[in-house]
C-alpha cells in the first residue's frame, strides 16, 4: 500500500474541526450525543486501521497479545511512538498510558480558569468545567479508535480516557466479558 505521508497539522486541524463542528454545530444541545458521534468516527478509523496493520502478522490468540499490538505497532504507526506504560488487573481491564500524547501536546487549558477553580467562585468553576469538558471531547476520537481496533480484533470492549495531567493521557480499556 501507499507509504505516503501528509503534514501532521492536516490531521490535527481536521480532528479539531471535526470535534468543534459536532460539539458546536451539529449537536450543540447534546454533548453526549456529540461524544457518541465523535467516538463512532474514531471507531471506524480504528476498525479499518487495525485490519490494515494486522495484515502481515499472525492473528492474535488472546487478548493481551492484541492489546500489546495496539500499544506497540499500532500506536507507532499512528504517533511514531509506543504507549509508555501498560497496566492490567488480569480481569479484563487494561490501562494504556502515553506520557506525551501527540494530540494533547499543544492543548493548554485557560490558566485563568484553572486558578479560578481553586477560588470557589461558582461561575468560573462552571466555565472551568466547561473547558475541561470541551477538552475531553477531543479524547472521544482516540478512544473510538482504540475500541474500533480491538473490536475488529474480536475483542469487544469499552474505552475511556483520562487527561488529568497534560500532555500525558491514559486510556482505560474494559473488555466486555
Amino acid at each position, binding site marked *: 500500500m501507499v507509504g505516503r505521508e501528509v503534514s501532521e497539522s492536516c490531521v490535527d*486541524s481536521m480532528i479539531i474541526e471535526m470535534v468543534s463542528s459536532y460539539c458546536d454545530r451539529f449537536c450543540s444541545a447534546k454533548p453526549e450525543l456529540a461524544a457518541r458521534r465523535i467516538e463512532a468516527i474514531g471507531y471506524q478509523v480504528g476498525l479499518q486501521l487495525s485490519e490494515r496493520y494486522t495484515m502481515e502478522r499472525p492473528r492474535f490468540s488472546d487478548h493481551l497479545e492484541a492489546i500489546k499490538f495496539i500499544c506497540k505497532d499500532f500506536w507507532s504507526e499512528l504517533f511514531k511512538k509506543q504507549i509508555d506504560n501498560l497496566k492490567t488487573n488480569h480481569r479484563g481491564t487494561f490501562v494504556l498510558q502515553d506520557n506525551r500524547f501527540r494530540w494533547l501536546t*499543544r492543548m*493548554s487549558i485557560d490558566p485563568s*480558569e484553572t486558578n479560578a477553580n481553586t477560588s470557589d467562585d461558582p461561575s468560573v468553576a462552571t466555565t472551568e468545567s466547561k473547558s475541561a469538558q470541551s477538552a475531553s471531547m477531543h479524547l472521544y476520537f482516540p478512544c473510538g479508535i482504540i475500541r474500533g481496533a480491538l473490536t475488529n480484533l474480536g475483542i469487544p470492549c469499552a474505552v475511556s480516557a483520562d487527561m488529568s495531567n497534560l500532555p500525558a493521557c491514559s486510556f482505560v480499556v474494559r473488555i466486555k466479558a
Partner: protein
Amino acid sequence: MQFFGGSDISPSPPVATGSGSNGHMMYVFNRNGICLLYREWNRPLRTLSSQQDHKLMFGLLFSLKSFTAKMDPTSVDKGNLGVPQLPGQGCSFHSFRTNTFKLSFMESPSGIKIILVTNPKTGDLRESLKYIYNLYVEYVVKNPLYSPGTPIKCELFNTSLDQYVKNLA
C-alpha cells in the same frame, strides 16, 4: 519591506546578546484590530485604561503604516492617505525608536500584528518577532481549545513567550 522567516519550523531562538529583561510589553492584534494578547513585563507607568491603550496602539500602527506607504518613494501604487491597505501591501515599517523605548512591529499577510516594545537599545528584533509568530502558530493556533479571533489564554504560549522575551537583547 518583507518579513523575514526563520529557516526552521520552530527556529532556535535568535541568540540573546546582552542580558537582563528589557522587554516592556507586547501586543498581538488580529486583522480586525482585536487585541488578542497584551503582555507586559515591565511597564513603570500606566496612564490609560487597557482598552484605550490598545486602541491607541492600533491607531498608531494603522496611521503610521498608511503614512509610510504614502511616503514610499519607490512604489507607484499609492492609495490616498488613510485609505486602508491590504496587509503586506506596499511598504511598511518594522520598528521605530524613541529616546525612551523601541517599538518593533511585524504583520503577517493574514493581518496578525505583533508589537514588541523594548528598551531603546535593543537591536533588530525582526527575527525574534518572526520567532514569536511561530510560537503563536504552534501554541495558539494549533491549540485545539483555542477558537480563532478570541483573546489568547494559553499557558503554553505565555510561558514560552515569557521565557523567550526574558533573555532578549
